[in-house]
């Protein structure tokens, strides 16, 4: 059996100060390939800290984090960047698309840094946009896209490098319920095709889509099982 996509062993993050802030208390978590994990919790409970650690954007102060079996605590910044660029896709609440580049160019940008052969880039980007149902809006500027379409472009950008892990931070926060529903269907479909997804959300109906729900409170992590939609 291959190594789990995510394996946390006593991972913790403390921000120095007086008193020190325990943003994430020592946590253990394992997410296998094709897992669908929702992280819920009130504001200030440490969700974003956990996401930054999982996304290799921040370094833990204690514990170990194995991504696809690679121990990230021993990696240099350069290796962490390479790993992040290849293995992790990010989807944010605010989309973060470049407003003066077309949808296709926004997706192509994600391939710029990781040695994708020039000839293969266009095909991969078009494929990713087709996969999120935006094959007909390749040349549209983000200013002319609806919120749901923008978030789909962001997902296509996250997926174009075929990551093993998709991290979503409140992906439906800026969308109305109709668009949010369509987006969650898209995520369900991607998960069904084998993608590992970790989604942070306030919304219980969004969390209900996930097979596993992890609740956070004051930096402590606790898992409730059996709340999946299936």
């Amino acid at each position, binding site marked *: 059996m291959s190594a789990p996509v995510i394996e946390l062993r006593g991972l913790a993050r403390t921000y120095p100060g007086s008193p020190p802030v325990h943003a994430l208390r020592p946590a253990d978590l394992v997410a296998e390939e094709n897992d669908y994990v929702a992280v819920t919790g009130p504001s200030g409970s440490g969700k974003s800290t956990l996401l930054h650690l999982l996304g290799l954007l921040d370094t833990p102060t204690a514990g170990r984090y194995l991504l696809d079996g690679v121990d990230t605590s021993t990696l240099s910044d350069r*290796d962490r960047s390479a790993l992040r660029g290849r293995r992790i896709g990010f989807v944010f609440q605010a989309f973060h698309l470049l407003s003066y*580049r077309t949808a296709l160019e926004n997706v192509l940008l994600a391939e710029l840094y990781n040695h994708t052969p020039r000839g293969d880039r266009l095909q991969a980007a078009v494929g990713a946009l087709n996969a999120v149902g935006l094959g007909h809006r390749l040349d549209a500027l983000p200013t002319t896209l609806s919120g749901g379409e923008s978030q789909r472009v962001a997902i296509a950008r996250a997926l174009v490098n075929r990551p093993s892990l998709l991290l979503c931070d409140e992906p439906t926060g800026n969308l109305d319920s109709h668009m949010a529903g369509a987006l969650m269907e898209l995520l369900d479909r991607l998960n069904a095709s084998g993608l590992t997804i970790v989604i942070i959300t306030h919304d219980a109906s969004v969390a209900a889509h996930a097979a596993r729900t992890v609740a956070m409170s004051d930096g402590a992590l606790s898992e409730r099982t059996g709340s999946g939609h299936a």
Partner: protein
Amino acid sequence: MRSPGAGLPPSRLSVRDTAAEAVAGIVARPGRAGLTMLGTVLGVGAFVAVLGLTATGAGQISHAFSVLEDTTVTVADNGPANDVAAPGANPAIGFPADADTIADHINGVVAAGVWWPVALPEETDFSASLALSGETSQTVNLLAASPGAVKAMDLAMVAGSPLTTYENDTGQHVAMIDTSTAAALGISPARLPSHPAVFVNGIAYTVVGVYGSAQRVVSGGSAMLIPGTRPWPAMATHSRASGPRKKPRWSLPPGPAPRRRCHGRSPPPNCRPIHTGWW
């Protein structure tokens, strides 16, 4: 467990992709790119302009200096006479008595004359009044100069007139002083019509002119000038000054140091010229 970072080359942005992104950025915001370009051009232009102005100013200054140097010729009398003259006797003279006239005949010479600094005893007293000993100055340079030398000095007159040939040839007790010396002695240039005098160890020299600055000879812009040539023929022809020329023909080091002190216009028999120059 796999080795850290296994099989993953580091992230990088190729030169071609960088160029493509740069072009895309310019094309996407042409107005902003234009303003940036304008700002860069203005900045570089201002920098170049400052450099140019600085270079021009420096060039002008060095040009002014070289004009002064290129048009001045000094000849020092360093003949053997200075070393062998007996005490009480005037030394032999290296220059002919009519050296002023001869130098004026040289093509291109504008002004020429003889001058030398007069060596003074220590504690020499300069004063504008015999009665008052308070307004004295110990730092006055005393130069004996022929009219041609005064002309070659290119003085900027503030009041009065330069030394004349008559005053020179007849050995009048007259003097020219600069404005700072005049201020130190308490002589106002406006007072010249009332014939103020400078007393050098009690000997009166009537002030006929006050000058502001000198182009040549007067070092530091401050000196008292008295007639030089005729009354003391032996001393007078020892120095020469000549005015602007196109190019220096020759230049010689200053003459020997003074052996005996000379003082003013009263003719001490053992006084010797100490420095000579030909302008």
